[in-house]
C-alpha cells in the first residue's frame, strides 16, 4: 500500500466519520430543542402562578447564604453587594470572601458598608487558605466579609461555605448583578421538592449594552459591538435550548458559577469546591452527580430559566480567547477527573448520555471541526474533493447552525422577551446568521489551543481589569465566569 493510498483511505474514512458525527450531533441538538420548547412553555405557564411575594414573606422559606468570592474587584464589588442587599427574599445573609485582593476591594467594602472586625467563631468544615479576619457590617447585619489569603475562587467559595449559617448556599460572581426576584425564583425547586433538590442554577445574560443603576439593570439593550452580540446569541442557545433540555432530562452537568444555589450540607459532604480544575462550578456539579448516584440517593439538579443574573462578556478577542481557554481546559480536566462515569450505567442518564455527550461532542467537537477544515484542503490537493457534495454539506452545516440560533431566539421571543425592540430582534437574527462565518470557527480554534495548553499543564485565570457598573461605564468587557458551550 502506497502512502497516497493510505492518505486517500484516511481522508475518505474521516469524511465518512464526519458525516456520521454531524448527523449524531445535530440530532441531539434537535432533540434538546424539542424538549426545551415544551419545558419553556410549561415554565412560562407556571410562572403565572408563582406567588413570589408569599415566599418572600414566609418563615417557612429556606434561608440562604449568598457567597460572593472577590479577588481584585474594587470597581464592581460595592455595586454588586448593593444589588444583593436589595434582592427580594425573606431571610438571607451575604458573605463576601475577599480572596487575597491586592487592590482596595476590602477598603471599598469597609467604607461603603461600615465594616468592623468580629470575633466570629465557625467550623472549618472544608480546609482553606488562612482566614485573616471576619468583618460584620454595622448598617447591614446580614452582610459578612471574610478576608483571607489568596487561594483561588474555589478556595474562596469554600471559606464562604465554612462561615455560612444557612442550609442553602448561593454562589454569585463579584462582577455580576442579579435581578430582584432571582433568589425567590431559583429557590423554588427546593421548596417544591425539598428532599431531592440538591442544586439549581439560573440563566445568565450579558450585561454589556445594558444600563445599570444602583446595582440594578434599568434598561436592557444589546451591546453595540459585534463580539458581545455573538455571545448574547451563544448564551441564549446554550441556556434556553441546552441547559433547559438537559435539566428536564435530569442530566444537567453545569450550573454557572455566576449564579447557582446548592444544599450546603451536600457540598460539604463532597469536600466543597475542587482546586484541581479551572472550572470549579462544572466539576462540583459533576461530582455531586457522581456522589449521589453512588449513594443511590434520589436527587435533582435543576435549571430554572427565569432567574436572571447579568454578567459581563469579553469585548476583545484576546480576553475571549483567555476565557474560552479556561473553560475548555476546565472541561477537559473535569472529564478526565471523572472518566469512570463515561458510558457507565451505574451513573444512569448522566453516565450514559450527558457526560459522554460532553466528552464526545463538547470536548472533542472543536478538534473534529478544525480537522475537517484541514481535511477539506487536503482532499482538494489530493483531488479527492467532491465539490458539489462539499458545498452541499457546508450549506447544510451552516444552515443548521443558523437554525439552532434562530430556534433559541424563538424560545426567547415566546417566553421571556428580554430584548423587546425590533432593532434588537433584527440584530439577534443577523448575528445568529453571521456567527457561522468566522466566530464559530474562531471558538473552535480557541478550544483546540486550550486542549494543547491543558496537555502542557498551563493554567492561567486570564484576568483583566474591570470598569464597574456605573451608567457611564456601560460598555463592558470580560465576565470570566460563565460557560456557554452549545449545551
Amino acid at each position: 500500500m502506497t502512502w497516497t493510498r493510505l492518505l486517500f483511505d484516511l481522508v475518505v474514512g474521516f469524511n465518512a466519520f464526519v458525516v456520521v458525527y454531524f448527523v449524531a450531533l445535530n440530532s441531539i441538538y434537535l432533540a434538546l430543542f424539542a424538549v426545551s420548547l415544551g419545558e419553556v412553555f410549561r415554565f412560562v405557564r407556571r410562572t403565572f402562578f408563582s406567588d413570589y411575594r408569599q415566599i418572600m414573606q414566609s418563615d417557612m422559606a429556606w434561608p440562604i447564604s449568598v457567597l460572593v468570592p472577590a479577588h481584585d474587584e474594587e470597581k464592581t464589588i460595592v455595586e454588586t453587594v448593593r444589588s444583593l442587599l436589595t434582592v427580594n427574599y425573606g431571610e438571607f445573609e451575604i458573605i463576601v470572601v475577599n480572596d487575597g485582593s491586592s487592590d482596595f476591594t476590602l477598603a471599598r467594602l469597609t467604607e461603603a458598608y461600615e465594616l468592623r472586625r468580629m470575633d466570629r467563631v465557625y467550623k472549618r468544615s472544608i480546609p482553606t487558605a488562612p482566614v485573616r479576619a471576619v468583618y460584620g457590617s454595622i448598617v447591614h447585619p446580614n452582610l459578612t466579609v471574610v478576608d483571607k489569603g489568596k487561594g483561588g475562587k474555589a478556595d474562596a467559595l469554600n471559606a464562604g461555605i465554612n462561615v455560612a449559617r444557612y442550609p442553602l448556599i448561593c454562589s454569585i460572581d463579584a462582577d455580576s448583578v442579579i435581578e430582584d426576584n432571582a433568589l425567590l425564583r431559583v429557590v423554588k425547586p427546593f421548596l417544591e421538592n425539598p428532599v431531592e433538590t440538591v442544586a439549581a442554577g439560573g440563566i445568565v445574560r450579558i450585561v454589556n449594552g445594558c444600563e445599570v443603576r444602583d446595582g440594578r439593570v434599568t434598561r436592557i439593550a444589546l451591546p453595540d459591538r459585534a463580539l458581545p452580540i455573538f455571545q448574547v446569541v451563544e448564551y441564549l442557545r446554550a441556556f434556553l435550548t441546552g441547559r433547559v433540555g438537559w435539566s428536564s432530562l435530569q442530566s444537567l452537568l453545569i450550573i454557572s458559577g455566576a449564579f447557582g444555589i446548592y444544599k450546603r450540607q451536600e457540598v460539604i459532604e463532597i469536600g466543597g469546591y475542587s482546586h484541581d480544575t479551572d472550572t470549579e462550578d462544572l466539576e462540583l456539579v459533576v461530582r455531586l452527580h457522581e456522589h449521589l448516584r453512588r449513594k443511590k440517593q434520589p436527587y435533582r439538579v435543576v435549571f430554572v430559566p427565569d432567574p436572571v443574573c447579568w454578567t459581563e462578556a469579553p469585548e476583545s478577542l484576546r480576553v475571549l480567547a483567555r476565557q474560552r481557554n479556561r473553560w475548555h481546559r476546565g472541561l477537559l480536566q473535569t472529564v478526565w477527573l471523572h472518566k469512570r462515569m463515561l458510558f457507565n450505567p451505574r451513573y444512569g442518564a448522566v453516565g450514559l448520555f450527558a457526560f459522554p455527550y460532553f466528552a464526545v461532542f463538547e470536548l472533542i467537537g472543536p478538534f473534529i471541526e478544525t480537522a475537517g477544515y484541514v481535511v477539506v484542503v487536503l482532499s482538494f490537493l489530493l483531488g479527492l474533493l467532491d465539490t458539489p457534495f462539499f458545498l452541499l454539506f457546508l450549506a447544510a452545516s451552516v444552515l443548521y447552525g443558523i437554525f439552532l440560533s434562530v430556534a433559541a431566539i424563538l424560545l426567547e421571543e415566546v417566553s421571556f422577551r428580554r430584548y423587546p425592540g425590533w432593532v434588537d430582534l433584527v440584530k439577534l437574527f443577523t448575528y445568529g446568521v453571521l456567527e457561522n462565518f468566522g466566530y464559530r470557527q474562531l471558538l473552535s480554534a480557541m478550544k483546540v489551543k486550550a486542549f494543547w495548553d491543558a496537555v502542557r499543564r498551563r493554567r492561567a485565570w486570564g484576568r483583566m481589569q474591570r470598569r464597574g457598573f456605573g451608567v457611564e461605564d456601560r460598555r463592558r468587557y470580560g465576565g470570566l465566569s460563565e460557560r456557554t458551550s452549545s449545551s
Partner: protein
Amino acid sequence: MQRVLVLAILSVTAVFSALTLLIVAGKAFREIRDARRRRRRNALEPLVLAYAHGDARSILPALGGGVSRRDRPVVEAILLDHVQRVRGVERDRLGRVLDELGFVETYLAGLSSPRWWVRARAAEHLGLSRAKRATPHLLRALDDDAYDVRLRAAKALAAAGGTAAVAPLAKALSEPNRFATIRIADILAGMGRPVVRELIDVFPHLSRHGKLAALDILGRIHPPEAVAWLNERLADPHPDLRARAAHAIGAIGATASAGVLREALDDPEWPVRAMAAKGLGRLHDEEAIPLLCAAMRDREWWVRANSGEALRRIGPAGIAALEGMLDDEDRYAQHQACLVLESAGMLERRVAELPSAGPGRDAALSLVQRFVRVGQTARLCELAATHRDPVVRDALARLLPLTEAAEEVVR
C-alpha cells in the same frame, strides 16, 4: 447521498423560514394587539371606574349597552386589575360587573377545562370576583389533580368563601409540596384567628410537614387561646414539632409558658433547645438566665447562638450574664459571649468609657481584660487602630498584647 443533503438543506431552510416568519409575525401581531388594547383601555377604564365609584345599577349603559368581543379582554383586564386595588363597596361593585358581563360564567366553565393552566386561571379569577356561587365549584377544585389548581382554588375560597374555606384549606396543608404549603399557610395566616380552632381540630390528621405548617401559622397569628394546646405539643414525640411549638410559644409572647420553655432547654434534640432559647429571649424571661448561660455551653452552634442572643434580648441582666460568661470554663461559651457583646455594640460602648473615671472605667477595663484573656481581640485591635478618641486608642494599645495591636496599626 447528495439527494439526502439537498433534502436536508431544503427541510432546514423551510423550518428556518417558518421559524423566522413565526417570530416576526408573532411579534408584529402582539404589538398591534397590545397597541389596540392600550388604546381601548384608555377609553374604557374611566367608564368602568366611574361605575365603580357611582351608584348605577348596571354598567351596561355606560358601556353602550354591551361589550364587543374584541373589547372583552380589555374590560376583563381592567376589572381584574382594579378589583385587587380597591376595597369595600367599589370592590363589591367591580366583582358584580365580572358576573354581570358573564366573566364569572366563563371562569366556572374554565374550571372544567382539560388544561390545568386554564383551570388554575379560572380559579384565580373566581377568587378575585368573590362570587359566592363559585364556592361549591371551588371546593370541588380542591381535589384537582394539578396542585396549582388546588392552590388557586384554596386562595379563591379564602377570598370568596370566608370561613367555609378554612377546613379544606387546613386539610390542604398536607400537600406534599412545600411551595404549596407555604402559600396555603400564608392564606390561612391572613385569615387570622377564625382559623385557630379548625387548625387545632385538623392537626392530628395532618401529615408531618402539614403539622409543622400549622404550628408556624399559629406562631404568626399569635392566638393566646392556643397557648395551652401549644404547651402540650412540647411533649410531641417528633423533635421538629416540639421545636416549632417552642417557636410558636415564643412568637405569641406567652409569658405564662416560660416554665415549659425552660424545661425544653433540656430537650435531648438540639432544634428544640435552640427554639426554646429563642422563645425565652422573646419572653424576656429573667428567671431563665442561669439556664441560658448553661445552654451557651451546648454542643450545637445554633443553641449557643440563640442562647446568647436570648440573653441579649432579656436586657441589662442578660448582658451582665453574658459578661459573666467571659469567665466561663467553656471556650465555646466564651467565644459566643464575645460575639454577642460585640454585635450588640456593648464592647464599643464600654470601650468608650475607658477615658472616664469611676465605675464606668472599671467595668470597661474589666471587660477588655477579659476579652484579651479569652483571646478574642480582633475587634479590640481594630478599635485600637481606628477609634475616633485618641485616649481610647492609647488605652486599648496599652491593654492589648503588643504584637496584635501593632499588627493592626500596620494593617
